[in-house]
């Protein structure tokens, strides 16, 4: 697959992802906040009337807010009706897919400029309500019907990976520690605290003292959610929105001297239920979506300088870094322990804190990855900036891998 017309990101914005600060807002206010920030970020300015269409990722406004039809609502509240507005729902990959849809819409020539974003307001429900809602993205009959929760599916993938490759929970804990560190450098992240800071704070309240992060992570203050995954292996429940603005390469220079070109995109599906997959230690759709994106971009996995991968659970980062071809199969956990995926490592992964620390307002996550790549490729990521980025990759997974979408960004 080749794009018949080049497409670049010319602006990006996002709200902080958080469980409290958006408490008195609905998704429309959260989305508009991110959208207006994206508009303001366009170097040479852009008017709302220049947007050709709007693509909005939203997983389950239905369940969280009793509000469907979110794209038209966002167009309405942003003041851009009657422009075409389309909601995309592919579980946790909703706005990652929206990015690809936006890219193809511009590449096709249908529009010169589109806005792509995502929004989720999750904190309207209790943890139990969120657990039920997230489980709707798995096979309701054959997985949820026998008791699987969404964390449970990834926990099962972890046991299969541990058994086949000898990877360990300690390696997963190292991912959590790394991503919390990165989150501490990101003012938009849900959690901006090192794991050790949490250990001290939680410990103080309970009269417990911890020598190091691992002692805390092994303690009762880090309870099991779904064995072997504990609380600090799971992304938090967050509200938030993220938005990017895509423009055709032939008009992008009007808006900025440093547009960030989309070099490659890919998307694949897989069997919904884990039990219908051939291999439980890999997400096939990641490999296939990445292959498409690498081919289109004309780059290899080892040329990627920075990546945002879908770490809804720590084990998911192991699977992702292997399936994207960054590390040999079975070596993803070891790579983290060796520091290869740290900000100053050979292959920095999730510089923004990942879903783990940045947060995962489900429908906003793919767009938030595009936001991070925009900053990283322009050298505007501040304290978490990775050095000498030529290529950045975003990897967004729907539920347990039924949908995977990948984008590769370059520099002009």
């Amino acid at each position, binding site marked *: 697959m080749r794009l018949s017309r080049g497409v670049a990101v010319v602006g990006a914005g996002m709200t902080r992802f958080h469980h409290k600060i958006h408490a008195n807002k609905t998704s429309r206010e959260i989305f508009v906040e991110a959208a207006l920030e994206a508009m303001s970020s366009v170097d040479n300015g852009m008017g709302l009337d220049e947007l050709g269409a709007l693509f909005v990722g939203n997983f389950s406004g239905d369940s969280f807010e009793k509000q469907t039809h979110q794209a038209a609502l966002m167009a309405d509240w942003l003041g851009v009706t009657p422009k075409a507005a389309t909601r995309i729902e592919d579980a946790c990959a909703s706005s990652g897919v929206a990015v690809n849809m936006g890219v193809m819409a511009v590449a096709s020539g249908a529009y010169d400029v589109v806005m792509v974003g995502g929004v989720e307001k999750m904190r309207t429900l209790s943890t139990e309500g969120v657990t039920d809602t997230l489980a709707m993205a798995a096979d309701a009959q054959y997985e949820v019907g026998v008791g699987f*929760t969404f964390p449970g599916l990834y926990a099962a993938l972890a*046991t*299969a990976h541990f058994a086949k490759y000898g990877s360990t929970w300690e390696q997963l804990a190292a991912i959590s520690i790394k991503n919390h560190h990165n989150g501490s450098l990101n003012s938009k992240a849900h959690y901006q605290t090192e794991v050790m800071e949490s250990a001290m704070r939680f410990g103080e309240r309970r009269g417990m003292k911890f020598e190091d992060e691992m002692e805390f992570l092994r303690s009762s203050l880090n309870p*099991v959610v779904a*064995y072997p995954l504990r609380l600090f292996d799971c992304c938090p429940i967050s509200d938030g929105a993220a938005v990017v603005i895509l423009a055709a390469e032939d008009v992008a220079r009007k808006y900025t001297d440093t547009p960030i070109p989309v070099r490659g995109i890919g998307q694949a599906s897989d069997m919904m239920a884990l*039990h219908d997959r051939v291999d439980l230690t890999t997400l096939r759709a990641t490999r296939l979506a990445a292959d498409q994106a690498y081919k289109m971009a004309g780059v290899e996995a080892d040329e990627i300088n920075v990546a945002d991968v879908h770490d809804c659970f720590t084990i998911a980062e192991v699977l992702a870094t292997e399936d994207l071809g960054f590390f040999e199969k079975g070596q993803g956990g070891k790579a983290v322990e060796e520091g290869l995926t740290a900000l100053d490592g050979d292959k920095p992964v999730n510089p923004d804190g990942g879903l783990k620390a940045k947060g995962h307002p489900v429908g906003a996550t793919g767009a938030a990855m595009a936001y991070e790549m925009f900053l990283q490729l322009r050298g505007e990521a501040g304290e978490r900036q990775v050095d000498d980025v030529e290529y950045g990759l975003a990897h967004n997974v729907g539920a347990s891998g039924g949908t995977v979408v990948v984008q590769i960004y370059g520099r002009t």
Partner: protein
Amino acid sequence: MTQFTVQAYKDFLQEGKLMGSRCKSCGTIYVPPRPVCPECHSRKLDWLEMSGDGTLEAYTVIAVPLSILAEEAPYAVGVVRLVEGPNVSGMILDIKEGAALTVGAHVKAEFKKGEGKAALCFRVT
């Protein structure tokens, strides 16, 4: 209308039968049953009853449960490789701790019935 429906599969579970469908063209077996073979795209499949014997491919013990299973937590679920070949998901009975399970453990199907609902369960043997 296909006979390989969710409802038909569940009705068999109520009778204590674990049923799948086998592709007449390439022989691949699917549990639960499917009407179209993803391997060869044939639409000619037959019912096939499974023995219920298998081994654990992957598992978890869920501490933060679905609301409908709040009373049962912690409870175990897993992906089971049946001796006939296909995998299927089910609850693993009477397991409260992850350390009690291992990938490769032998399990046998049991059927939890009642209230018009039937669920596939397994027990470690």
